[in-house]
C-alpha cells in the first residue's frame, strides 16, 4: 500500500469538504444564527486535515493502483462522514453517535434522522443536512475529480470504486469530461426541481433544500412531517416527478441530449423502471381504495407518491404504516429494487432485478432444451456470463447483509418485522421503514449499538459492499511484494 498517495488524496478531499462547509458558514453568517462558530471550527478542522495530507502525501503518475483507489474512496467516505458530523456535535445539536448517524445518513442518502423536530434547527444546519445528501448523492469522489485541476489516469480507480451498478456506464472517454458532464446534469436537475417546488408553493429555502435531497435521492426534509407537512397535491406531484427523474441513470440523460429521445425507447432499464412504478402505483391504488383507507382520487395521489418515494428518497406524504399488509409488503419490495444504475438511488437497482429474472428464465429454458444456446440480453445486446455472475453474487451479498443486520438489530430487542424493515431501508438507503421507524417516527430512541450497525450497513450499501469489504481483508493493507 502506497500510503503517501492515500494521504495525498484524503487531504485534498478534506479541503473539498471544507469548501462545501463554506456554504452553510456564509448562510449562518447571513442569518446571524448561533451555528457560525461551529461551522468555522469545522472548516478549520478540514483545513488542518487537508494540510496534514498535503505535508505527508505525495503523488506521481503510476503510483495509484486499484488498491490505493479503493483505499482512498473507502477512507474518504468514512473521513467525510466524521467531518460532516462536526457541525452537529460542535454546535451541540446532537451527541457524537447521533451526529455521526445524521452525517452518514446524509452522505449516503439514507435519509433517516434522529432529529424529532428539524424545523427547530438553525437554517444553516438544515442547509448542511441537505447539502450532505446532495454531495453524497452523486458521490464525493465525482465532485472531487470535477474540482481537480488535472485528473489523469490516477483517479480512474477511485471513480470505479465509488461507481454503482453492474456494468461500467462510461458515456465519455475522458473521466474528467464525464464527471463534469454528470455534475452539470446534476446541477441542472437540482435547479429545475427547486424552481418547480417554488412554483408549486414551497417556501424558497424549503424548495432549495428539498430539491437537493430529492435529486440526491436522500429524503431529508426541513419539516418533521416530511412532504405531508404541505398537504398539497401540486407539491406532491412535483416531488413525485423529480424523484422519478432522479431515479434514472444520468448517463442516459446525456445520451438523450446527444442522440435524441429514441434512446429512451431502446433502454430496457428505463422501461422496466417506469413499468415497476406504474404497476406499483396501480396495485397500491387498488389496495388503498379496496380497503376503504382513502377514496379513489386520494388513493391514487398517495399511491403514486409513495411508490416513487419509497424506492429512492424515503419521503412520506401519509402514514403508510397504517396501510394494509399487502401495501407494506409491496413497499418493502420497492425499497429493495431501488432506482436505475447510474442514478443517485441505491438499492439492488432495476437493471440487476431485470437481469436476475432473465437469468432465471434463461435457466428454465435451458433445462427444457439442453442443447440450445440461451443468452441473456439487455438493451438488445448479449450480457456476458461474467457480468451475470457478478449480478447474482451481488444479490446474494445484498441479502446476506440484510439478514445479518436484521439479526444484529434484533439483539437489541427490536421486533422482527421492524428490524427487517430497518435493515432493508439501511442497505437500500431509503430512510423510514415500518413500526418503530415508520414515516412518523425517528431513529432517536435506538441504542448507540443499533445506530452504529445502521451506519456501517448504510455505508456498505452505498458503496455496493465490495469496496469496503475488500478493505477488511488483511492482505489488502500489506506492502506490495517485490520481485
Amino acid at each position, binding site marked *: 500500500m502506497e500510503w503517501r498517495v492515500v494521504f495525498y488524496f484524503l487531504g485534498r478531499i478534506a479541503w473539498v469538504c471544507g469548501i462545501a462547509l463554506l456554504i452553510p458558514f456564509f448562510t449562518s453568517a447571513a442569518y446571524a444564527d448561533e451555528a457560525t462558530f461551529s461551522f468555522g471550527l469545522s472548516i478549520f478542522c478540514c483545513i488542518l486535515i487537508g494540510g496534514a495530507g498535503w505535508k505527508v502525501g505525495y503523488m506521481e503518475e503510476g503510483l495509484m493502483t486499484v488498491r490505493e483507489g479503493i483505499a482512498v474512496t473507502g477512507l474518504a467516505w468514512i473521513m467525510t462522514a466524521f467531518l460532516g458530523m462536526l457541525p452537529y456535535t460542535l454546535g451541540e445539536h446532537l451527541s457524537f453517535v447521533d451526529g455521526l448517524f445524521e452525517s452518514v445518513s446524509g452522505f449516503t442518502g439514507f435519509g433517516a434522522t434522529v432529529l424529532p423536530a428539524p424545523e427547530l434547527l438553525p437554517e444553516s444546519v438544515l442547509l448542511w443536512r441537505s447539502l450532505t445528501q446532495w454531495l453524497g448523492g452523486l458521490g464525493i469522489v465525482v465532485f472531487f475529480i470535477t474540482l481537480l485541476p488535472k485528473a489523469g489516469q490516477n483517479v480512474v480507480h477511485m471513480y470505479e470504486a465509488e461507481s454503482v451498478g453492474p456494468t461500467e456506464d462510461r458515456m465519455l472517454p475522458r473521466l474528467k469530461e464525464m464527471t463534469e458532464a454528470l455534475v452539470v446534469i446534476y446541477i441542472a436537475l437540482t435547479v429545475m426541481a427547486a424552481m418547480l417546488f417554488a412554483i408549486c408553493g414551497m417556501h424558497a429555502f424549503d424548495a432549495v433544500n428539498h430539491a437537493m435531497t430529492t435529486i440526491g435521492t436522500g429524503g431529508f426534509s426541513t419539516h418533521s412531517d416530511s412532504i405531508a407537512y404541505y398537504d398539497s397535491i401540486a407539491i406532491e406531484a412535483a416531488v413525485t416527478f423529480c424523484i422519478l427523474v432522479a431515479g434514472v441513470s444520468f448517463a442516459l440523460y446525456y445520451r438523450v441530449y446527444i442522440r435524441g429521445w429514441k434512446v429512451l425507447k431502446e433502454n430496457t432499464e428505463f422501461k422496466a423502471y417506469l413499468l415497476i412504478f406504474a404497476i406499483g402505483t396501480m396495485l397500491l391504488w387498488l389496495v388503498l381504495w379496496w380497503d376503504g383507507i382513502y377514496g379513489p382520487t386520494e388513493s391514487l395521489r398517495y399511491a403514486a407518491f409513495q411508490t416513487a418515494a419509497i424506492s429512492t428518497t424515503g419521503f412520506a406524504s401519509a402514514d403508510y404504516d397504517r396501510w394494509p399488509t399487502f401495501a407494506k409488503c409491496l413497499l418493502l419490495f420497492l425499497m429493495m429494487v431501488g432506482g436505475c444504475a447510474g442514478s443517485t438511488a441505491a438499492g439492488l437497482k432495476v437493471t440487476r432485478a431485470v437481469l436476475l429474472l432473465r437469468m432465471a428464465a434463461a435457466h428454465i429454458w435451458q433445462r427444457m432444451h439442453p442443447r440450445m444456446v440461451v443468452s441473456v440480453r439487455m438493451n438488445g445486446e448479449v450480457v456476458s456470463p461474467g457480468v*451475470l455472475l457478478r449480478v447474482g453474487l451481488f444479490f446474494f451479498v445484498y441479502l446476506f447483509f440484510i439478514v445479518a443486520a436484521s*439479526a444484529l438489530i434484533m439483539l437489541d430487542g427490536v421486533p422482527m418485522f421492524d428490524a427487517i424493515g430497518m435493515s432493508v431501508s439501511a442497505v437500500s438507503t431509503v430512510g423510514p421503514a415500518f413500526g418503530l421507524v415508520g414515516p412518523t417516527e425517528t431513529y432517536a430512541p435506538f441504542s448507540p449499538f443499533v445506530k452504529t450497525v445502521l451506519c456501517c450497513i448504510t455505508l456498505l450499501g452505498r458503496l455496493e459492499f465490495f469496496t469496503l469489504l475488500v478493505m477488511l481483508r488483511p492482505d489488502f493493507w500489506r506492502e506490495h511484494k517485490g520481485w
Partner: protein
Amino acid sequence: MAAAVFSVLGLSVFDAVNLAMVTLATGGCYTPMTSDGGTLFSLAMMAVMLFSAGNFFFYAEVTRRGLTVDNPGAGEMRAMLRLVVGAGLLISLHLWRSGTYDISDSLRNGFFAATAFLSTTGMNPVLLAGWPDFDRFVLILLIFIGGCIASSAGGLKILRLSVLANASVEELRRTLHSRMVLRVSALGRMVPLSMVGQLLSFFSLYTAVFFGAAMALSLAGIAPLSAMGLSAACLTSAGPAALLAGDVGVYTSMGEGWRLFCCALMLLGRLEVFSFLFVIQTLLSRWEGRW
C-alpha cells in the same frame, strides 16, 4: 431403527412408528406431542433429525466403504454439524442471557430447536411462544438453509449456499485483481463457473418466489410477518415454521382459496422451483401446440 429407539424410550408402538416416519421424512407433524419428553428423548429425536438432514449418498458410501476421507458427502456433513453446533450455541446463549430459561434448559431447547429447524422438521410452536425475536429469526434462517443435498430436508441446502458464499469471497478478491480467473471451490470440491451461474439462477428464483408468495399471502389479511413466515414454511416444507413469525392461528384463519395457494407453494418448494416451473412450461407449450 428410529421406531425401535422411540419405542424403547417409552412411546407406544403406533406412536413410535408414526414418529419415526415423520421425523425421518422431516415432516414434523408429530413433534408437538413429543418435543418435551425428557432429555434422553430429545437427544434421540435430535439424532434422527440430524440423520434425516444428512446426505443419503454419504450414508450409502459409508455402508459400502466405511468412513473414508474421500467420501464426497463428508464436507457437507461436517458443515451441517458445525452449523447445528454454532446455531445451537448461539440460541442457547441468547435464551440464557435473555432470562428465558436457566442454563441447562437453554442448552437443551436451543440445540433441539436448531436441529429441528435446520432439518426443516420444525417443533411445537407453542413452546417457542415466549422466545425472543432474535432466536426465532435464527430459526427461520435455519429452515432457509435446510439440510444437505440428497436428504429428505427442504430449504436451499448447505452445499448450494456454501458454493455461493465461496464464490462471493472469490468475487471480493476479484475486486482487487480485476483480471483474476475465478476459481470456486466449496467443501473440498471444485465447482465449475457454469454451475455457480445455475445456482445463482436458482437462488434468485427461489427468493423471487418467496417474496412474490409472501406478497400474495398478505392479501389474505394476515400480518406481514405471518405472510413471510407462511411463504417460508411452504417453500421449505417446514410447516410449523409458519407460526414462528406470526400468530399461531395463521393456518385456520385463512380461506380455502389461500390454502390451495399454499398447496401449490408447497409443491413448488418440494420440487425445488425449477422442476415445478418446468412442468408448468411443458403443459403450457403442449396446450399452445393444440392451436
